[in-house]
């Protein structure tokens, strides 16, 4: 349903996939590697190794990718127009951040058809922090006509380490952005490609996983999985060249934690402890990554 009193023509708005194409092209033209989504469940684009690991160490790295991000507790069975269990982020990492990074970002909005002379854009303080990853940064939420469309962060620490180069992280909420561009009230009404709605592609996904996350997931099994992945990660961290597989195990733990949380299986007192376990693993991986890759990178330089 489009808004009846809308002054916006929707016919020229890019489709969902066109929006993604244009953003990828835009950042590709500015020297980014265009990566595919990471294929292990993550809660945010930051958790993909293309961000979490690549921001560590002294080697420049520019990358952009779409990352489907799973947040089991946010699921609404496909019934809420704005909340999703799995949403898609376009994640851009510019390491080091160029001096004109904000201008480049504004250019990306123009590339998807936003004429900034007809809109209102503000950068409002919003510092980002992910305790489970030992990561934090300074930045803003970017507000476009009152809607938060992007999280903009200058990373300061990751895995507990001060970063050698300060990366800029741009995280676009693609569903929000597309709903805004197409002037629809519900993400399910977004035109994915002509004739196909977001709901056609993703509705069942939302419905079934909401049911699984809230009702069907086997809590005892999840706790077992958590223990197993934790153990595997700890074992791999002792190996000389297995930091990437070890990190996959961290992501598994994190996702299982989110599932347990959605099931209401983690009490307040347990919560701090479990977060601490994931954090310990993540910090271990960051340390191993630096130890294993930084000398190599320096010898290449």
């Amino acid at each position, binding site marked *: 349903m489009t*808004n009846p009193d*809308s*002054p*916006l023509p929707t016919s020229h708005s890019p489709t969902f996939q066109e929006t993604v194409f244009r953003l990828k092209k835009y950042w590709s033209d500015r020297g980014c590697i265009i990566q595919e989504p990471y294929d292990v469940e993550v809660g945010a684009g930051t958790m993909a190794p293309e961000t979490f690991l690549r921001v560590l160490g002294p080697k420049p790295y520019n990358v952009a990718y779409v990352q489907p991000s799973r947040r089991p507790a946010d699921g609404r069975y496909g019934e*809420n*127009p*704005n909340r999703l269990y799995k949403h898609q982020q376009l994640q851009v990492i510019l390491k*080091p*951040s160029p*001096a004109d990074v*904000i*201008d480049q970002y*504004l250019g990306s909005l123009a590339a998807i058809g936003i004429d*900034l*002379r*007809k*809109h*209102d*854009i*503000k*950068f*409002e*303080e919003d*510092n980002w922090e992910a305790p489970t990853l030992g990561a934090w*940064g*300074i930045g*803003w939420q970017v507000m*476009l*006509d*009152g*809607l938060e469309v992007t999280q903009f962060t*200058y990373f*300061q620490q990751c895995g507990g380490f*001060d*970063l*050698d*180069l*300060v990366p800029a992280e741009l995280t676009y909420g693609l569903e929000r952005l597309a709903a*805004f561009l197409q*002037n629809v*009230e519900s993400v399910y009404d977004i035109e994915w490609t002509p004739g196909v709605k977001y709901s056609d592609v993703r509705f069942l996904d939302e419905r079934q996983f909401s049911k699984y996350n809230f009702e069907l997931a086997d809590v005892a099994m999840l706790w077992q999985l958590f223990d197993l992945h934790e153990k595997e990660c700890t074992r791999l961290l002792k190996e000389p060249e297995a930091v990437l597989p070890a990190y996959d195990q961290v992501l598994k733990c994190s996702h299982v934690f989110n599932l347990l949380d959605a099931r209401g299986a983690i*009490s*307040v*007192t347990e919560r701090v402890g479990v977060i601490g376990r994931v954090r310990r693993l993540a910090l271990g991986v960051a340390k191993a990554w630096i130890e294993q890759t930084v000398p190599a990178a320096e010898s290449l330089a």
Partner: protein
Amino acid sequence: MSIPFLLEIGTEEIPDWMIVPALNHLQDTLQAILDQQSLGGKVTSADATPRRLVLRAEGLLERQPDVEELVSGPPKSAGPNAAAGFAKKNAATLEQLIVQSTPKGEYYFLQKRTQGQASAAVLAGALPDLILKIPWPKTMYWNGKGSERFIRPIRWLVALLGDAVVPFEIAGVRSGNTTVGHRILGNPSILVTIADFDEQLRTNGVILSAEQRKRKIETEIAGLLDGKGLRIKPDPDLLHTLAYITEFPTPILGSFDRSYLDLPQEVLITVMRHHQKYLSVEDSSGKLAPHFIAVMNTNADPDGLVRHGNERVLRARFNDARFFWDQDQKKPLTARLEDLKAVTFQAKIGSYFEKTERVVALVKELGGDDDAQRAAQLAKCDLTTDMVKEFTDLQGIVGGLYARAQGEVEEVAQAIYDHYKPLSMEDAIPSTETGRLVSLADKWDTLTECFKVGMAPTGSRDPFGLRRAAQGVVRIVVEGKAKFDFPGAGDELREFMRDRIEYYFRDVRQFPYDEVRACMAVGWTDLIDLLSRLATVRGIRPTPDFEPLAASFKRIKNILRQANFEGGVAFRKDLLKEGPEVDLYEEIQRTKGNKLASRVASLRPKVDFFFDKVLVNAPEEDVRRNRLTLLHNLLTEFSEIADFSEIVTERQAS
């Protein structure tokens, strides 16, 4: 010659609430540099937008004045080698030295002249430090590990002394005479002079003065609402924020569907204010109207796209709020009590369930009726609602609204609604006695429990807001005239409360500090009584006999201390000697029960006379002790009001 100076620090968007303190610091520090370095000149303005901090000064000298000083060297007797060494050290020749005689003998001296440096050079050396030492709450680096830190990246610097650039560099950015306009409305590279700086910014979409930006917002809002029978709900804090998140603010009027007005206006206003930074609009009767004011950071909304976008966002937010309201009603507050076991109040102290039990017991102990106990029991239940999880600022308020909707009596609902009050010095205390009691018990429980586990505030660290809680306790007791004697407080908490009470009467109620000290010295746990004693002392302070009498009390106190006398001796009238001693005694007896002011007036000459004529330390031991007893009793009698020896009299002050 007198030269103007301008400094602009160009950055990415600085958080609005940090800007004014930073400007104040910059202004003071630049003035200190000008003074210390003898550059002359006064800082005349400090202005800012989110992207720039700008200082101006007038009347700088072109160079520091030269300094002449007489430097003393070795004694003449030390010989030519010593003299040569002294000359060399001061970059002078032997011939320039002079010999002068001093009380210690003849010495070498050098009339040294230090040439003043060019002001531009002094500033070039001082400005990087001035800029980098602004005390921000949280800083970042952006050029790699170990590089300069600032609140957000510095992207350009303008530093002009007259027409010349003051050259320096910070984090790879060189100072110059090129500024940057508004992100959308302006040119990204603009040559400026000190004279045309403001005007150039203005034509490039930047209003430098925050006051002007505020006025622009206010004037244009008035225009938007003109003739519509609407007005904004005054909100100076939000107006301030809006002026500091924009370089070119322009308000627009948006609307929402009337049906949302079914939601409590507290919820609507919170959504608009905290989440969207919108000003609320009301009709002439003060009722919330289905409109809002958003402030853009641009000059116009030609196609209505900005208004449309903001309305769309607000609709989604209101829908969420309505969803939360409906969801929350499915489980009434009473059914949520058990859930509080899972909500931690503080790790070392326990859950909100346990807190609730303690607060209910305290309310009962303080004489709370069934309504008060019921309110205390339900007060924290809203912490488990979706509404409060989403809008944490609405804790208490949501509980009160839900209680009302769920059929609790009004007294209970209002008490829950108000029980976090007062949230600040400006905020009112709860409006009902039940509300005040619940609020008092809740805050007092927080204080006693936190102090028990060693979480007293230290320095500026007060993560649990204990100072605010204590201030709330004091205000509720005094302004709500409640009976309260700080039950269960240990020494540390008593000391803490004592400080807060002293602060309240001195800084908030504006009683002179010595009167507060004098009255508190004889007791402070009954705050109603303390307030009435303070009022009494304030009443007699201006009378001519008061301060001399206070000075006499100080003298009495000293005499008693020196004599190591603590009373306990029966007074014997028969030992009094005729004259000043009997006079004083009779005057004390005669004026018993009189108003303090008249007692002070009639006793003062008798006390003076007594000290003039009577030797307290009489040779006869029984007479001596009797006189001490007379003075001791007099002091004790007045000590029911205050320890007058704490009063700072004029003689002491001068």
